[in-house]
Protein backbone atom coordinates (compact mmCIF):
# COMPACT_ATOMS: atom_id res chain seq x y z
CA UNK A 1 0.00 0.00 0.00
CA UNK A 2 1.32 3.39 -0.90
CA UNK A 3 1.74 5.62 2.11
CA UNK A 4 2.16 8.87 0.22
CA UNK A 5 -0.62 11.37 0.68
CA UNK A 6 -1.36 13.23 -2.51
CA UNK A 7 -1.67 16.94 -1.89
CA UNK A 8 -4.63 18.78 -3.44
CA UNK A 9 -2.12 20.76 -5.49
CA UNK A 10 -0.93 17.60 -7.19
CA UNK A 11 -4.45 16.33 -7.71
CA UNK A 12 -5.44 19.42 -9.62
CA UNK A 13 -2.76 21.28 -11.49
CA UNK A 14 -3.91 24.12 -13.70
CA UNK A 15 -0.71 23.81 -15.72
CA UNK A 16 -1.82 20.43 -16.97
CA UNK A 17 -5.06 21.72 -18.49
CA UNK A 18 -4.92 21.56 -22.31
CA UNK A 19 -4.19 24.90 -23.93
CA UNK A 20 -3.08 26.58 -20.69
CA UNK A 21 0.22 27.80 -22.09
CA UNK A 22 -1.36 29.01 -25.31
CA UNK A 23 -4.07 31.04 -23.50
CA UNK A 24 -1.58 32.51 -21.08
CA UNK A 25 0.79 33.66 -23.82
CA UNK A 26 -2.07 35.08 -25.91
CA UNK A 27 -3.29 37.12 -22.92
CA UNK A 28 0.14 38.55 -22.23
CA UNK A 29 0.71 39.41 -25.87
CA UNK A 30 -2.64 41.20 -26.11
CA UNK A 31 -1.93 43.09 -22.90
CA UNK A 32 1.59 44.20 -23.62
CA UNK A 33 2.14 44.18 -27.40
CA UNK A 34 0.37 47.53 -28.01
CA UNK A 35 2.34 49.11 -25.18
CA UNK A 36 5.59 47.73 -26.55
CA UNK A 37 4.76 49.15 -30.00
CA UNK A 38 3.97 52.53 -28.45
CA UNK A 39 7.25 52.56 -26.54
CA UNK A 40 9.10 51.41 -29.65
CA UNK A 41 7.69 54.15 -31.87
CA UNK A 42 8.45 56.80 -29.24
CA UNK A 43 12.09 56.33 -30.28
CA UNK A 44 11.26 56.75 -33.98
CA UNK A 45 13.33 59.25 -35.95
CA UNK A 46 10.61 60.13 -38.44
CA UNK A 47 7.30 61.88 -37.86
CA UNK A 48 5.17 58.99 -39.09
CA UNK A 49 3.27 56.82 -36.69
CA UNK A 50 3.48 53.75 -38.88
CA UNK A 51 6.85 54.01 -40.60
CA UNK A 52 10.10 53.23 -38.80
CA UNK A 53 12.83 55.65 -39.83
CA UNK A 54 15.58 54.96 -37.31
CA UNK A 55 16.40 55.34 -33.64
CA UNK A 56 16.28 58.78 -32.01
CA UNK A 57 15.31 60.67 -28.87
CA UNK A 58 13.92 63.46 -31.03
CA UNK A 59 10.35 63.26 -29.74
CA UNK A 60 11.43 63.11 -26.11
CA UNK A 61 13.45 66.23 -26.70
CA UNK A 62 10.58 67.90 -28.53
CA UNK A 63 8.19 67.06 -25.68
CA UNK A 64 10.70 68.39 -23.19
CA UNK A 65 10.87 71.69 -25.12
CA UNK A 66 7.10 72.01 -25.36
CA UNK A 67 5.89 74.61 -22.83
CA UNK A 68 2.34 73.19 -22.86
CA UNK A 69 3.64 69.73 -21.99
CA UNK A 70 5.73 71.20 -19.20
CA UNK A 71 2.77 73.08 -17.74
CA UNK A 72 0.53 70.02 -17.91
CA UNK A 73 3.20 67.82 -16.32
CA UNK A 74 3.73 70.29 -13.51
CA UNK A 75 -0.01 70.52 -12.86
CA UNK A 76 -0.35 66.74 -12.89
CA UNK A 77 2.44 66.42 -10.35
CA UNK A 78 1.02 69.16 -8.10
CA UNK A 79 -2.41 67.54 -8.08
CA UNK A 80 -1.09 63.98 -7.70
CA UNK A 81 1.20 64.94 -4.81
CA UNK A 82 -1.56 66.74 -2.93
CA UNK A 83 -4.23 64.15 -3.69
CA UNK A 84 -2.00 61.25 -2.66
CA UNK A 85 -1.00 63.03 0.56
CA UNK A 86 -4.57 63.88 1.60
CA UNK A 87 -6.08 60.58 0.50
CA UNK A 88 -3.37 58.61 2.34
CA UNK A 89 -4.03 60.49 5.58
CA UNK A 90 -7.77 59.90 5.21
CA UNK A 91 -7.26 56.27 4.22
CA UNK A 92 -4.97 55.65 7.20
CA UNK A 93 -7.59 57.03 9.56
CA UNK A 94 -10.30 54.99 7.82
CA UNK A 95 -8.19 51.83 8.04
CA UNK A 96 -7.56 52.38 11.76
CA UNK A 97 -11.26 53.04 12.27
CA UNK A 98 -12.25 49.82 10.56
CA UNK A 99 -9.63 47.51 12.10
CA UNK A 100 -8.60 48.92 15.48
CA UNK A 101 -11.99 49.40 17.09
CA UNK A 102 -14.39 47.03 18.78
CA UNK A 103 -16.84 45.53 16.31
CA UNK A 104 -19.75 47.93 15.84
CA UNK A 105 -23.00 47.93 13.90
CA UNK A 106 -22.61 48.98 10.29
CA UNK A 107 -18.89 48.19 10.11
CA UNK A 108 -19.36 46.21 6.91
CA UNK A 109 -21.48 49.00 5.44
CA UNK A 110 -18.72 51.51 6.17
CA UNK A 111 -16.16 49.21 4.60
CA UNK A 112 -18.33 48.99 1.47
CA UNK A 113 -18.82 52.75 1.39
CA UNK A 114 -15.08 53.43 1.59
CA UNK A 115 -14.54 51.12 -1.37
CA UNK A 116 -17.53 52.22 -3.44
CA UNK A 117 -15.54 54.49 -5.79
CA UNK A 118 -13.99 51.28 -7.10
CA UNK A 119 -17.43 49.97 -8.07
CA UNK A 120 -19.30 53.09 -9.17
CA UNK A 121 -18.61 53.88 -12.86
CA UNK A 122 -16.15 56.76 -13.00
CA UNK A 123 -18.35 58.69 -15.38
CA UNK A 124 -21.11 58.78 -12.76
CA UNK A 125 -18.77 60.27 -10.17
CA UNK A 126 -17.47 62.67 -12.82
CA UNK A 127 -20.91 63.98 -13.75
CA UNK A 128 -21.93 64.24 -10.10
CA UNK A 129 -18.79 66.24 -9.26
CA UNK A 130 -19.27 68.42 -12.34
CA UNK A 131 -22.76 69.40 -11.19
CA UNK A 132 -21.76 70.06 -7.58
CA UNK A 133 -18.58 71.95 -8.44
CA UNK A 134 -20.24 73.96 -11.21
CA UNK A 135 -22.81 75.17 -8.67
CA UNK A 136 -20.07 76.16 -6.26
CA UNK A 137 -18.03 77.82 -9.01
CA UNK A 138 -21.09 79.83 -10.05
CA UNK A 139 -21.87 80.85 -6.48
CA UNK A 140 -18.36 81.78 -5.38
CA UNK A 141 -16.60 82.63 -8.60
CA UNK A 142 -13.63 80.55 -7.38
CA UNK A 143 -12.05 78.63 -10.24
CA UNK A 144 -8.87 77.35 -8.57
CA UNK A 145 -7.10 74.02 -8.43
CA UNK A 146 -8.81 72.93 -5.18
CA UNK A 147 -11.71 71.37 -7.10
CA UNK A 148 -9.36 69.02 -8.91
CA UNK A 149 -7.41 68.25 -5.73
CA UNK A 150 -10.62 67.44 -3.83
CA UNK A 151 -11.95 65.28 -6.66
CA UNK A 152 -8.66 63.38 -7.00
CA UNK A 153 -8.39 62.94 -3.22
CA UNK A 154 -11.88 61.45 -3.18
CA UNK A 155 -11.32 58.78 -5.80
CA UNK A 156 -7.80 57.98 -4.53
CA UNK A 157 -8.95 57.10 -0.99
CA UNK A 158 -9.96 53.48 -1.71
CA UNK A 159 -6.71 52.81 -3.55
CA UNK A 160 -4.68 54.09 -0.61
CA UNK A 161 -6.99 52.36 1.87
CA UNK A 162 -6.61 48.80 0.60
CA UNK A 163 -2.86 48.25 1.18
CA UNK A 164 -2.98 50.10 4.52
CA UNK A 165 -5.88 48.01 5.75
CA UNK A 166 -4.21 44.80 4.57
CA UNK A 167 -1.09 45.74 6.50
CA UNK A 168 -3.07 46.51 9.65
CA UNK A 169 -4.92 43.23 9.45
CA UNK A 170 -1.69 41.28 9.05
CA UNK A 171 -0.08 43.05 12.00
CA UNK A 172 0.24 41.01 15.19
CA UNK A 173 -2.24 42.57 17.61
CA UNK A 174 -0.23 41.39 20.59
CA UNK A 175 2.46 43.96 19.67
CA UNK A 176 0.09 46.82 20.47
CA UNK A 177 -1.10 45.02 23.59
CA UNK A 178 2.53 44.53 24.64
CA UNK A 179 3.19 48.25 24.14
CA UNK A 180 0.20 49.12 26.34
CA UNK A 181 1.47 46.62 28.91
CA UNK A 182 4.82 48.46 28.86
CA UNK A 183 3.23 51.78 29.86
CA UNK A 184 2.65 53.22 26.36
CA UNK A 185 -0.46 55.42 26.26
CA UNK A 186 -2.68 54.81 23.22
CA UNK A 187 -1.12 57.76 21.33
CA UNK A 188 2.47 56.70 22.08
CA UNK A 189 1.59 53.12 21.22
CA UNK A 190 0.39 54.36 17.82
CA UNK A 191 3.46 56.53 17.25
CA UNK A 192 6.06 54.06 18.46
CA UNK A 193 4.63 50.71 17.40
CA UNK A 194 1.63 50.87 15.04
CA UNK A 195 2.87 53.67 12.76
CA UNK A 196 6.43 52.36 12.19
CA UNK A 197 5.06 48.91 11.41
CA UNK A 198 2.36 50.38 9.19
CA UNK A 199 4.74 52.60 7.22
CA UNK A 200 5.33 50.20 4.30
CA UNK A 201 1.54 49.95 3.86
CA UNK A 202 1.17 53.73 4.01
CA UNK A 203 3.95 54.24 1.46
CA UNK A 204 2.41 51.65 -0.86
CA UNK A 205 -0.98 53.30 -0.47
CA UNK A 206 0.43 56.75 -1.18
CA UNK A 207 2.27 55.60 -4.31
CA UNK A 208 -0.78 53.78 -5.61
CA UNK A 209 -2.87 56.92 -5.05
CA UNK A 210 -0.19 59.00 -6.79
CA UNK A 211 -0.19 56.79 -9.88
CA UNK A 212 -3.99 56.65 -10.00
CA UNK A 213 -4.23 60.44 -9.73
CA UNK A 214 -1.49 60.94 -12.31
CA UNK A 215 -3.27 59.09 -15.10
CA UNK A 216 -6.88 60.03 -14.43
CA UNK A 217 -8.73 61.37 -17.48
CA UNK A 218 -12.47 61.11 -16.99
CA UNK A 219 -13.02 62.93 -13.70
CA UNK A 220 -10.33 65.51 -14.47
CA UNK A 221 -11.88 66.27 -17.86
CA UNK A 222 -15.25 66.97 -16.22
CA UNK A 223 -14.03 68.93 -13.21
CA UNK A 224 -11.23 71.06 -14.62
CA UNK A 225 -11.71 74.74 -15.37
CA UNK A 226 -10.36 76.31 -18.54
CA UNK A 227 -6.57 76.11 -18.78
CA UNK A 228 -6.26 73.45 -16.09
CA UNK A 229 -4.90 70.67 -18.26
CA UNK A 230 -3.17 67.73 -16.65
CA UNK A 231 -0.88 65.58 -18.76
CA UNK A 232 -3.57 63.01 -19.67
CA UNK A 233 -6.23 65.63 -20.58
CA UNK A 234 -3.61 67.58 -22.55
CA UNK A 235 -2.75 64.44 -24.48
CA UNK A 236 -6.42 63.76 -25.11
CA UNK A 237 -6.79 67.27 -26.47
CA UNK A 238 -3.73 66.90 -28.72
CA UNK A 239 -4.82 63.56 -30.13
CA UNK A 240 -8.17 65.09 -31.18
CA UNK A 241 -6.30 67.47 -33.46
CA UNK A 242 -3.19 65.77 -34.78
CA UNK A 243 -1.38 62.69 -33.58
CA UNK A 244 2.38 63.26 -33.33
CA UNK A 245 5.01 60.84 -32.07
CA UNK A 246 5.51 63.38 -29.28
CA UNK A 247 2.46 61.80 -27.62
CA UNK A 248 4.20 58.42 -27.79
CA UNK A 249 7.15 59.87 -25.95
CA UNK A 250 4.97 61.43 -23.22
CA UNK A 251 2.93 58.25 -22.81
CA UNK A 252 6.14 56.21 -22.55
CA UNK A 253 7.48 58.57 -19.91
CA UNK A 254 4.22 58.26 -17.92
CA UNK A 255 4.44 54.50 -18.26
CA UNK A 256 8.01 54.57 -16.92
CA UNK A 257 6.88 56.55 -13.86
CA UNK A 258 4.02 54.09 -13.22
CA UNK A 259 6.27 51.04 -13.58
CA UNK A 260 8.81 52.63 -11.25
CA UNK A 261 6.14 53.30 -8.62
CA UNK A 262 4.65 49.80 -8.81
CA UNK A 263 8.13 48.26 -8.53
CA UNK A 264 8.85 50.40 -5.48
CA UNK A 265 5.59 49.33 -3.82
CA UNK A 266 6.50 45.72 -4.50
CA UNK A 267 10.02 46.13 -3.11
CA UNK A 268 8.87 47.94 0.04
CA UNK A 269 6.26 45.33 0.82
CA UNK A 270 8.60 42.45 0.18
CA UNK A 271 11.40 43.84 2.32
CA UNK A 272 9.27 44.39 5.40
CA UNK A 273 7.40 41.10 5.44
Amino acid at each position, binding site marked *: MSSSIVSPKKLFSIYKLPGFTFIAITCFVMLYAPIMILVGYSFNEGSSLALWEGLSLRWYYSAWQNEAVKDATLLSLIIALQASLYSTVLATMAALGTTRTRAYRGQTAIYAMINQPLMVPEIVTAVALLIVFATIKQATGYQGLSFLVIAHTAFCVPFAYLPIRARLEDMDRS*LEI*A*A*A*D*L*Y*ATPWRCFRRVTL*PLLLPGILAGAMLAFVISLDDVVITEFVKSAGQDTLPTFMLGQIRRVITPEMNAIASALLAVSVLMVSLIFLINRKKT
Partner: protein
Amino acid sequence: MTDPVAISVNQVSKQFGQGADAFFALDQVSVDIRENEFFTLLGPSGCGKTTLLRLIAGFEHPTAGHIQLHGEEISHLPPFKRPVNTVFQNYALFPHLTVAENIGFGLDMQDKPAAEIESTVTEMLQLVQMESMRDRRTDQISGGQQQRVALARALAPHPRVLLLDEPLSALDYKLRKGMQIELKRLQLETGITFIFVTHDQEEALTMSDRIAVMNNGQILQVGSPNDIYDRPSHRFVADFIGDTNFLSAELVESSSEHAVVKLSSGKNLVTGPTEATLNNVVSITVRPEQAVLIDDLANADLQGTVTNIMYSGTDSHFHIELPSQEEFVAKVQNAGPARRDWETGQTVGIKFHDNAVQIVED
Protein backbone atom coordinates in the same frame (compact mmCIF):
# COMPACT_ATOMS: atom_id res chain seq x y z
CA MET B 1 3.14 32.23 54.83
CA THR B 2 3.62 35.69 56.28
CA ASP B 3 4.36 37.59 53.07
CA PRO B 4 1.78 40.32 52.38
CA VAL B 5 -0.72 39.92 49.58
CA ALA B 6 0.41 41.26 46.19
CA ILE B 7 -2.66 40.55 44.06
CA SER B 8 -6.07 40.01 45.57
CA VAL B 9 -8.78 38.67 43.29
CA ASN B 10 -12.18 38.95 44.89
CA GLN B 11 -15.36 37.37 43.47
CA VAL B 12 -14.28 38.14 39.91
CA SER B 13 -16.50 37.08 37.01
CA LYS B 14 -15.90 37.62 33.32
CA GLN B 15 -18.71 37.20 30.85
CA PHE B 16 -18.20 37.09 27.10
CA GLY B 17 -21.12 37.57 24.72
CA GLN B 18 -24.65 38.60 25.53
CA GLY B 19 -28.03 36.90 25.96
CA ALA B 20 -28.18 33.36 24.65
CA ASP B 21 -24.51 33.45 23.61
CA ALA B 22 -23.36 34.59 27.04
CA PHE B 23 -20.63 32.50 28.53
CA PHE B 24 -18.73 32.91 31.78
CA ALA B 25 -14.99 32.53 31.25
CA LEU B 26 -14.60 33.18 34.98
CA ASP B 27 -17.26 32.52 37.57
CA GLN B 28 -16.82 34.28 40.93
CA VAL B 29 -13.15 33.54 41.31
CA SER B 30 -11.32 34.57 44.48
CA VAL B 31 -7.65 34.10 45.24
CA ASP B 32 -4.85 35.92 47.08
CA ILE B 33 -1.39 35.86 45.55
CA ARG B 34 1.44 36.84 47.91
CA GLU B 35 4.56 38.87 47.39
CA ASN B 36 7.65 36.96 46.31
CA GLU B 37 5.57 34.04 45.29
CA PHE B 38 5.89 31.84 42.21
CA PHE B 39 2.18 31.28 41.69
CA THR B 40 0.86 29.06 38.92
CA LEU B 41 -2.57 29.01 37.31
CA LEU B 42 -2.95 25.46 36.04
CA GLY B 43 -5.74 23.99 34.00
CA PRO B 44 -6.79 22.65 30.60
CA SER B 45 -7.36 25.04 27.70
CA GLY B 46 -10.56 27.03 28.08
CA CYS B 47 -10.52 26.78 31.89
CA GLY B 48 -10.22 30.56 32.33
CA LYS B 49 -6.57 30.76 33.40
CA THR B 50 -5.53 33.07 30.56
CA THR B 51 -8.64 35.22 31.06
CA LEU B 52 -7.70 35.68 34.73
CA LEU B 53 -4.18 36.68 33.67
CA ARG B 54 -5.54 39.17 31.12
CA LEU B 55 -7.81 40.68 33.78
CA ILE B 56 -4.82 41.17 36.09
CA ALA B 57 -2.81 42.68 33.21
CA GLY B 58 -5.69 44.97 32.26
CA PHE B 59 -6.26 43.69 28.71
CA GLU B 60 -9.80 42.80 29.76
CA HIS B 61 -11.97 44.18 32.51
CA PRO B 62 -14.06 42.06 34.91
CA THR B 63 -17.84 41.87 34.52
CA ALA B 64 -18.12 41.70 38.31
CA GLY B 65 -15.79 41.62 41.30
CA HIS B 66 -12.56 43.37 42.27
CA ILE B 67 -8.86 43.00 41.65
CA GLN B 68 -6.49 44.75 44.04
CA LEU B 69 -2.75 45.28 43.80
CA HIS B 70 -1.25 45.87 47.24
CA GLY B 71 -4.66 46.94 48.48
CA GLU B 72 -5.26 49.38 45.61
CA GLU B 73 -8.21 48.75 43.31
CA ILE B 74 -6.97 48.18 39.73
CA SER B 75 -9.92 46.34 38.12
CA HIS B 76 -10.68 49.11 35.66
CA LEU B 77 -7.27 50.73 35.16
CA PRO B 78 -5.92 50.53 31.60
CA PRO B 79 -2.85 48.26 31.22
CA PHE B 80 -0.44 51.20 30.82
CA LYS B 81 -1.31 52.43 34.30
CA ARG B 82 -0.65 49.12 36.07
CA PRO B 83 2.79 48.30 37.52
CA VAL B 84 2.38 44.79 36.14
CA ASN B 85 4.17 43.40 33.06
CA THR B 86 3.49 40.42 30.86
CA VAL B 87 5.59 37.84 29.05
CA PHE B 88 3.46 36.83 26.08
CA GLN B 89 3.05 33.33 24.75
CA ASN B 90 4.33 34.41 21.31
CA TYR B 91 6.79 36.87 22.97
CA ALA B 92 5.35 39.84 20.99
CA LEU B 93 8.78 41.41 20.50
CA PHE B 94 8.75 44.63 18.46
CA PRO B 95 10.18 43.63 15.07
CA HIS B 96 11.26 47.19 14.20
CA LEU B 97 13.43 47.58 17.31
CA THR B 98 16.72 46.00 18.36
CA VAL B 99 17.07 43.69 21.35
CA ALA B 100 18.25 46.59 23.54
CA GLU B 101 15.46 48.90 22.31
CA ASN B 102 12.90 46.21 23.06
CA ILE B 103 14.18 45.81 26.61
CA GLY B 104 14.29 49.58 27.14
CA PHE B 105 10.81 50.20 25.71
CA GLY B 106 8.92 50.13 29.01
CA LEU B 107 11.41 52.46 30.71
CA ASP B 108 11.30 54.80 27.73
CA MET B 109 7.50 54.96 27.95
CA GLN B 110 7.85 55.79 31.64
CA ASP B 111 10.07 58.74 30.57
CA LYS B 112 13.09 57.53 32.51
CA PRO B 113 16.35 59.39 31.78
CA ALA B 114 18.46 57.92 28.98
CA ALA B 115 21.35 57.05 31.33
CA GLU B 116 19.05 55.04 33.59
CA ILE B 117 17.51 53.21 30.63
CA GLU B 118 21.00 52.42 29.35
CA SER B 119 22.19 50.98 32.66
CA THR B 120 18.98 49.00 33.30
CA VAL B 121 19.10 47.52 29.80
CA THR B 122 22.70 46.44 30.38
CA GLU B 123 21.76 44.95 33.73
CA MET B 124 18.83 43.06 32.18
CA LEU B 125 20.97 41.78 29.31
CA GLN B 126 23.37 40.37 31.90
CA LEU B 127 20.52 38.90 33.92
CA VAL B 128 19.31 36.88 30.94
CA GLN B 129 22.83 36.31 29.56
CA MET B 130 22.24 38.09 26.26
CA GLU B 131 24.93 40.81 26.38
CA SER B 132 26.36 39.87 22.98
CA MET B 133 22.96 40.18 21.25
CA ARG B 134 22.39 43.79 22.27
CA ASP B 135 22.12 45.32 18.79
CA ARG B 136 20.63 42.36 16.97
CA ARG B 137 17.20 42.57 15.41
CA THR B 138 14.63 40.30 17.00
CA ASP B 139 14.30 38.14 13.88
CA GLN B 140 18.04 37.48 13.94
CA ILE B 141 17.94 35.53 17.21
CA SER B 142 16.67 32.05 18.07
CA GLY B 143 13.37 31.19 19.77
CA GLY B 144 15.07 30.58 23.11
CA GLN B 145 16.85 33.92 22.86
CA GLN B 146 13.62 35.70 21.95
CA GLN B 147 12.15 34.18 25.08
CA ARG B 148 14.96 35.70 27.16
CA VAL B 149 14.50 39.10 25.54
CA ALA B 150 10.76 38.95 26.25
CA LEU B 151 11.56 38.18 29.90
CA ALA B 152 14.13 40.96 30.15
CA ARG B 153 11.73 43.43 28.52
CA ALA B 154 9.00 42.61 31.04
CA LEU B 155 11.40 42.71 34.01
CA ALA B 156 13.20 45.94 33.05
CA PRO B 157 10.58 48.36 34.46
CA HIS B 158 10.77 46.41 37.77
CA PRO B 159 7.06 45.51 37.87
CA ARG B 160 5.41 44.59 41.18
CA VAL B 161 4.05 41.48 39.53
CA LEU B 162 5.22 39.60 36.42
CA LEU B 163 2.61 37.72 34.42
CA LEU B 164 3.74 34.82 32.26
CA ASP B 165 1.29 33.42 29.71
CA GLU B 166 2.49 29.90 28.82
CA PRO B 167 5.87 31.37 27.91
CA LEU B 168 7.62 28.02 27.46
CA SER B 169 5.07 26.30 25.26
CA ALA B 170 6.79 27.25 22.00
CA LEU B 171 10.18 25.86 23.06
CA ASP B 172 11.39 22.31 22.47
CA TYR B 173 11.70 19.92 25.40
CA LYS B 174 15.36 20.52 26.28
CA LEU B 175 15.17 24.29 26.00
CA ARG B 176 12.01 24.24 28.08
CA LYS B 177 13.71 22.33 30.90
CA GLY B 178 16.55 24.86 30.88
CA MET B 179 14.17 27.82 30.91
CA GLN B 180 12.23 26.34 33.84
CA ILE B 181 15.37 26.46 35.98
CA GLU B 182 16.19 29.92 34.56
CA LEU B 183 12.74 31.29 35.42
CA LYS B 184 12.91 29.95 38.95
CA ARG B 185 16.35 31.56 39.36
CA LEU B 186 15.11 34.91 38.00
CA GLN B 187 12.16 34.85 40.38
CA LEU B 188 14.41 34.21 43.38
CA GLU B 189 16.96 36.84 42.27
CA THR B 190 14.47 39.61 41.55
CA GLY B 191 12.01 38.84 44.35
CA ILE B 192 9.16 39.78 42.02
CA THR B 193 5.85 37.94 42.28
CA PHE B 194 5.47 35.65 39.26
CA ILE B 195 2.05 34.57 38.09
CA PHE B 196 2.59 31.75 35.65
CA VAL B 197 -0.07 30.26 33.40
CA THR B 198 0.38 26.72 32.09
CA HIS B 199 -1.51 23.59 31.15
CA ASP B 200 1.55 21.43 31.83
CA GLN B 201 1.10 19.84 35.27
CA GLU B 202 4.70 18.70 35.50
CA GLU B 203 5.93 22.25 34.83
CA ALA B 204 3.56 23.54 37.50
CA LEU B 205 4.71 20.99 40.09
CA THR B 206 8.43 21.63 39.58
CA MET B 207 8.38 25.44 39.49
CA SER B 208 5.62 26.74 41.72
CA ASP B 209 5.42 27.80 45.33
CA ARG B 210 1.66 27.47 45.06
CA ILE B 211 -0.67 26.27 42.35
CA ALA B 212 -4.29 27.14 41.63
CA VAL B 213 -5.98 24.38 39.65
CA MET B 214 -8.73 25.75 37.43
CA ASN B 215 -11.54 24.19 35.45
CA ASN B 216 -14.69 25.65 33.83
CA GLY B 217 -13.98 29.19 34.98
CA GLN B 218 -13.46 28.26 38.61
CA ILE B 219 -10.53 27.71 40.91
CA LEU B 220 -10.96 24.24 42.39
CA GLN B 221 -7.99 24.13 44.72
CA VAL B 222 -5.10 26.35 45.77
CA GLY B 223 -2.09 24.82 47.48
CA SER B 224 1.57 23.87 47.38
CA PRO B 225 2.56 21.34 44.69
CA ASN B 226 2.71 18.75 47.46
CA ASP B 227 -0.81 19.62 48.70
CA ILE B 228 -2.23 19.48 45.23
CA TYR B 229 -0.63 16.16 44.38
CA ASP B 230 -1.08 14.33 47.68
CA ARG B 231 -4.28 15.92 48.95
CA PRO B 232 -6.43 16.81 45.94
CA SER B 233 -9.81 18.20 46.95
CA HIS B 234 -11.63 17.46 43.70
CA ARG B 235 -11.83 14.50 41.40
CA PHE B 236 -10.77 16.84 38.55
CA VAL B 237 -7.65 17.99 40.42
CA ALA B 238 -6.58 14.44 41.25
CA ASP B 239 -7.15 13.36 37.66
CA PHE B 240 -5.51 16.39 36.00
CA ILE B 241 -2.34 16.12 38.07
CA GLY B 242 -0.73 12.75 37.55
CA ASP B 243 -2.26 9.29 37.31
CA THR B 244 -4.67 8.15 39.96
CA ASN B 245 -7.35 5.60 40.88
CA PHE B 246 -10.91 6.48 41.84
CA LEU B 247 -13.00 4.18 44.02
CA SER B 248 -16.41 4.42 45.63
CA ALA B 249 -16.61 4.17 49.40
CA GLU B 250 -19.06 4.90 52.18
CA LEU B 251 -18.42 7.64 54.70
CA VAL B 252 -18.98 5.97 58.08
CA GLU B 253 -17.37 8.41 60.48
CA SER B 254 -16.65 12.13 60.20
CA SER B 255 -15.17 14.62 62.64
CA SER B 256 -13.19 17.83 62.41
CA GLU B 257 -9.89 15.88 62.68
CA HIS B 258 -10.49 12.88 60.51
CA ALA B 259 -12.99 10.73 58.64
CA VAL B 260 -13.41 7.01 58.15
CA VAL B 261 -14.49 5.44 54.87
CA LYS B 262 -15.65 1.88 54.32
CA LEU B 263 -14.27 0.33 51.11
CA SER B 264 -16.18 -2.06 48.86
CA SER B 265 -14.15 -4.85 50.48
CA GLY B 266 -15.61 -3.97 53.88
CA LYS B 267 -12.32 -2.56 55.18
CA ASN B 268 -12.39 0.74 57.09
CA LEU B 269 -9.72 3.38 56.36
CA VAL B 270 -8.93 6.65 58.13
CA THR B 271 -8.56 9.78 55.95
CA GLY B 272 -8.43 13.52 56.46
CA PRO B 273 -11.57 15.46 57.48
CA THR B 274 -14.29 16.00 54.87
CA GLU B 275 -17.43 18.05 54.44
CA ALA B 276 -19.32 15.20 52.77
CA THR B 277 -22.51 13.92 54.44
CA LEU B 278 -22.20 10.94 56.79
CA ASN B 279 -23.34 7.53 55.49
CA ASN B 280 -23.23 8.73 51.89
CA VAL B 281 -21.23 7.20 49.07
CA VAL B 282 -18.10 9.29 48.38
CA SER B 283 -15.33 9.10 45.81
CA ILE B 284 -11.87 8.36 47.09
CA THR B 285 -8.60 8.58 45.20
CA VAL B 286 -5.39 6.60 45.65
CA ARG B 287 -2.24 7.25 43.59
CA PRO B 288 -0.93 4.11 41.81
CA GLU B 289 2.41 4.37 43.63
CA GLN B 290 0.64 4.55 47.02
CA ALA B 291 -0.21 0.84 47.08
CA VAL B 292 1.74 -2.42 47.31
CA LEU B 293 0.61 -5.83 46.12
CA ILE B 294 0.67 -8.61 48.73
CA ASP B 295 -0.15 -12.33 49.08
CA ASP B 296 -1.85 -12.04 52.43
CA LEU B 297 -5.45 -11.39 51.33
CA ALA B 298 -6.72 -11.18 54.93
CA ASN B 299 -4.42 -8.27 55.62
CA ALA B 300 -5.12 -6.44 52.32
CA ASP B 301 -7.33 -3.37 51.92
CA LEU B 302 -8.67 -4.66 48.60
CA GLN B 303 -8.25 -7.75 46.53
CA GLY B 304 -8.70 -8.45 42.87
CA THR B 305 -7.54 -10.24 39.74
CA VAL B 306 -4.56 -9.09 37.73
CA THR B 307 -5.81 -8.39 34.19
CA ASN B 308 -2.84 -6.69 32.59
CA ILE B 309 0.79 -5.87 33.34
CA MET B 310 2.49 -2.94 31.60
CA TYR B 311 6.24 -2.60 31.85
CA SER B 312 7.45 1.02 31.64
CA GLY B 313 11.14 0.96 32.49
CA THR B 314 11.33 2.42 35.98
CA ASP B 315 8.21 0.60 37.12
CA SER B 316 5.49 -1.86 36.17
CA HIS B 317 1.80 -1.06 36.14
CA PHE B 318 -0.50 -3.83 37.41
CA HIS B 319 -4.10 -3.49 36.26
CA ILE B 320 -6.35 -5.23 38.79
CA GLU B 321 -10.06 -5.84 38.46
CA LEU B 322 -11.88 -5.58 41.79
CA PRO B 323 -14.99 -7.60 42.74
CA SER B 324 -16.91 -4.30 42.58
CA GLN B 325 -16.08 -4.16 38.81
CA GLU B 326 -13.83 -1.15 39.44
CA GLU B 327 -10.32 -1.16 38.05
CA PHE B 328 -7.29 -0.38 40.17
CA VAL B 329 -3.82 0.34 38.83
CA ALA B 330 -0.83 -0.23 41.11
CA LYS B 331 2.59 1.08 40.14
CA VAL B 332 5.44 -1.06 41.46
CA GLN B 333 9.05 0.09 41.16
CA ASN B 334 11.11 -2.37 39.19
CA ALA B 335 14.25 -1.65 41.21
CA GLY B 336 12.52 -1.68 44.60
CA PRO B 337 12.18 -4.49 47.14
CA ALA B 338 8.46 -5.07 46.50
CA ARG B 339 7.36 -8.36 45.02
CA ARG B 340 6.31 -8.05 41.40
CA ASP B 341 6.31 -11.58 39.93
CA TRP B 342 2.54 -11.78 39.62
CA GLU B 343 0.96 -12.96 36.43
CA THR B 344 -2.33 -12.09 34.79
CA GLY B 345 -5.26 -14.06 36.18
CA GLN B 346 -3.77 -14.30 39.67
CA THR B 347 -5.64 -12.98 42.70
CA VAL B 348 -3.66 -10.40 44.66
CA GLY B 349 -4.15 -8.30 47.76
CA ILE B 350 -3.75 -4.51 47.58
CA LYS B 351 -2.37 -2.73 50.63
CA PHE B 352 -2.42 1.09 50.72
CA HIS B 353 0.34 3.20 52.26
CA ASP B 354 -0.55 5.33 55.29
CA ASN B 355 -2.49 8.48 54.40
CA ALA B 356 -2.80 7.30 50.78
CA VAL B 357 -6.57 7.68 50.63
CA GLN B 358 -8.18 11.05 49.87
CA ILE B 359 -11.88 11.85 49.69
CA VAL B 360 -12.53 14.01 46.61
CA GLU B 361 -15.47 16.13 45.55
CA ASP B 362 -16.97 15.00 42.26
